């Protein structure tokens, strides 16, 4: 009897403990190693000492991290280094850094904003118009010419067009090489021996089909061209829409929902009804029929480089920001072998949609803008966020030019060993051109910053560069079109469906979903914007 009683008391204790344990208020977003989202204002590392006339304001910066998400402790170390530097500089702001996994960045930030956690500066990774409409962001128009003036001096005022709504500016776009170049990636041995490629080779889509034929004949058991798996609802495809939408081909501006502009004009059309789309689907269908691509191409989720590593695929297409006009011969661990990047074509230059915004919950917008300004003008702050703490996470090779350092990982360590490494975030923070160059494992380094800047300057822009389509009035139609797209696009873009049969069906279906209303709305907005 006594044993029963003790047992039942223990049981009750366990159950009540379970209740208390799940009472902690941590967000559901981060399930990644090194989640960093515990909020306690005590991370305010410079709060104790105040300098000069006013107390420094702490601005919370939530930035996305790809591939590696550093742990909280590591981030605190970086914060201390940056805040000490800011204190020495006499700046009025301090940073409270928060590294968030890029894969669920949007959801995590959403949860924080709804849950009342402190969010000051964050990035809108797409969907900027919606964020403005639901009042998630505050306007920063007042501070453009004060706190952000140094940034504007570097970037110029044109890029603000992408974040201006109704005369107010709601975000600061990232200053980077927006335009992508698309490459055909294949093993170097095959490129040189079977196809006779040399450094400097470029290839067009038509030539590509010929080469795929050669590869398919020679290696019938392997996939000549692996499809790019889509994610988050995007369809599997071969990047053909981006390539053929580039300046070398049809120059297409895609506004979403199958609505866009073909060519250098401002007439909005149904993109699914154009020669451009037919060409894209026909090429993919061609490749599919001839057996160059994966089986079940519209549903596979395997990445091309994984298939190459496993020896099941021979090549794939992918796009990278910036220019690599030469064919580069790199050996990297992603592929497990030496591969050649053969440029195909650049894409059209469109605003990246990567904007820094001030959340509606921010108490001090001016301080947030000052902090934002640092990302574009101050190499030390920028690069500390990317690389971490000197000595612990990176070392100065001394090869650089004073403030503009060339850095490498500490001896014997890889990016996974050091406490803090966020270099993969490089393309989406502030000013890409003040990032320090990293030393390659083989001891060489490449400073492509000037080349990228030139490339970006000379890139062919969309005729409506800077325009953002606000879909608030046509939400129902957009939702309907979204469903239709998920039904047909995957099959069409990956070449599983016959374009002659299914493109008319797609066109009819989007019309039924109300695409004409979307086209009219887009045209109206563009005419008003010009």
């Amino acid at each position, binding site marked *: 009897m006594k044993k029963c009683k003790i047992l039942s008391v223990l049981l009750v204790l366990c159950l009540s403990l379970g209740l208390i344990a799940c009472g902690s208020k941590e967000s559901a977003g981060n399930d990644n190693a090194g989640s960093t989202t515990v909020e306690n204002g005590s991370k305010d590392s410079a709060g104790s000492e105040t300098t000069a006339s006013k107390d420094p304001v702490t601005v919370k910066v939530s930035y996305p991290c790809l591939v590696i998400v550093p742990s909280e402790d590591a981030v605190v170390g970086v914060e201390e280094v940056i805040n000490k530097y800011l204190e020495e500089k006499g700046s009025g702001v301090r940073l409270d850094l928060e590294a968030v996994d890029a894969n669920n960045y949007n959801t995590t930030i959403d949860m924080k904003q*709804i849950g009342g956690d402190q969010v000051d500066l964050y990035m809108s990774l797409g969907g900027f118009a919606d964020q403005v409409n639901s009042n998630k962001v505050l306007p920063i128009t007042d501070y453009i010419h004060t706190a952000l003036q140094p940034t504007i001096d570097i970037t110029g005022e044109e890029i603000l067009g992408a974040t201006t709504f109704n005369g107010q500016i709601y975000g600061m776009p990232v200053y980077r090489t927006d335009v992508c170049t698309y490459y055909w990636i294949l093993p170097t041995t095959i490129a040189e021996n079977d196809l006779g490629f040399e450094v400097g080779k470029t290839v067009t889509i038509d030539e590509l089909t010929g080469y795929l034929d050669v590869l398919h004949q020679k290696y019938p058991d392997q996939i000549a061209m692996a499809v790019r798996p889509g994610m988050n609802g995007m369809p599997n495809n071969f990047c053909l829409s981006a390539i053929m939408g580039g300046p070398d081909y049809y120059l297409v501006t895609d506004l979403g929902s199958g609505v866009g502009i073909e060519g250098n004009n401002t007439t909005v059309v149904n993109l699914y009804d154009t020669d451009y789309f037919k060409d894209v689907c026909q090429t993919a269908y061609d490749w599919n029929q001839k057996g160059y691509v994966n089986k079940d191409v519209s549903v596979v989720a395997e990445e091309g480089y994984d298939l190459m590593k496993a020896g099941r695929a021979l090549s794939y297409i992918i796009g990278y920001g910036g220019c690599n006009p030469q064919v580069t011969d790199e050996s990297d661990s992603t592929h497990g072998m030496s591969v050649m990047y053969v440029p195909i074509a650049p894409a059209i230059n469109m605003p990246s949609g990567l904007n820094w915004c001030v959340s509606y919950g921010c108490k001090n917008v001016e301080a947030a803008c000052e902090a934002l300004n640092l990302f574009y003008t101050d190499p030390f702050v920028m690069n500390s966020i990317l690389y971490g703490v000197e000595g612990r996470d990176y070392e100065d090779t001394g090869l650089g030019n004073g403030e503009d350092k060339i850095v490498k990982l500490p001896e014997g360590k890889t990016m996974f060993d050091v406490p803090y490494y966020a270099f993969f975030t490089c393309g989406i923070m502030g000013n890409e051109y003040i990032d320090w160059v990293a030393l390659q494992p083989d001891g060489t380094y490449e400073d492509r910053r000037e080349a990228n800047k030139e490339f970006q300057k000379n890139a062919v822009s969309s005729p409506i560069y800077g325009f953002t389509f606000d879909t608030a009035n046509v939400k*129902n139609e957009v939702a309907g079109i979204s469903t239709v797209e998920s039904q047909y696009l995957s099959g069409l873009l990956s070449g599983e469906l016959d374009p002659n049969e299914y493109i008319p069906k797609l066109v009819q279906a989007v019309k039924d979903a109300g695409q004409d209303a979307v086209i009219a709305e887009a045209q109206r907005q563009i005419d008003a914007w010009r």
Partner: protein
Amino acid sequence: MESVKRAKKRRVNYLPLILMMLPGIAYMIVNNYLPMFGITIAFKNLDYSKGIFGSEWVGLKNFEFLFRSKDFFMIIRNTILYNIVFILGGTFASLAIAVMMTELGKHKIAKVLQPIICFPNMISIVIVAYLVYGFLGGDGWINNTLLKGDGISWYSKPEYWPFILTLVHFWKGAGYGSIIYIATMSGIDVGLYEAAKLDGATKMQQIRLITIPIIRPMIMLMLLLSIGRIFSSDFGLFLQVPMDSGALYNTTQTIDTYVYRALMKLNDVSMSSAASVFQSIMGFILVMLSNLLVRKVDPQSSLF
């Protein structure tokens, strides 16, 4: 004096039971009842700076995208038909398994079998999707080993999928659902079966005339509860298992997958709440109606 003492003793006996219920009840209140005010999100245009209470009312505007869609009847049809098959067939399958397990009752093998039949329910539906892909994929077992030669492109033929999805659903859920029936059946007086055997009843007759009638209230309860969810569907089953293939929409699109695909890019909280509210309200109406019906026919089996 004595009766007061006895009454006190009875109250104290309930205390540990109440304490044990407390976490569950607290969880239920916090998770199921407190968020109910959120139903209002479906009728508002959510503005983050004003919060949920401050956002403006827009009536039924958020429901339009669902009702105006020309696929509306198809998705309702799919959802309801699949659920009817799942509920009826699932109950039958669970009952069959429960009867068989009860027969094995005393044998040692029952202890091994029970975890095995429950196991499929614990496998994540994403893994199940890939298991199915292993069977039905282009390089899968069925195409390579059974149907050598051409094989069928399963992921682009919608007509096979009602059967495939039903099969997967039963495989995953029937074992787990049989547990509650096994538990009820174990409470049936063994004496009844012995008496029936003496009277010359066969196994089938025993099942049909003793087991089923006794657990009928439990069956009705489970059925009624399932009807409340008839407008919802197992999202993982209908999205992941067909590998999100567009060609299969006609037979695999349900309300949940439709809402997901429509709103993935829009990221509109109010519209997705509207779809959810629609499902819940329809389910609620159906539960009330069917309970009313059952109460007229068989008062003992109704929920309330």
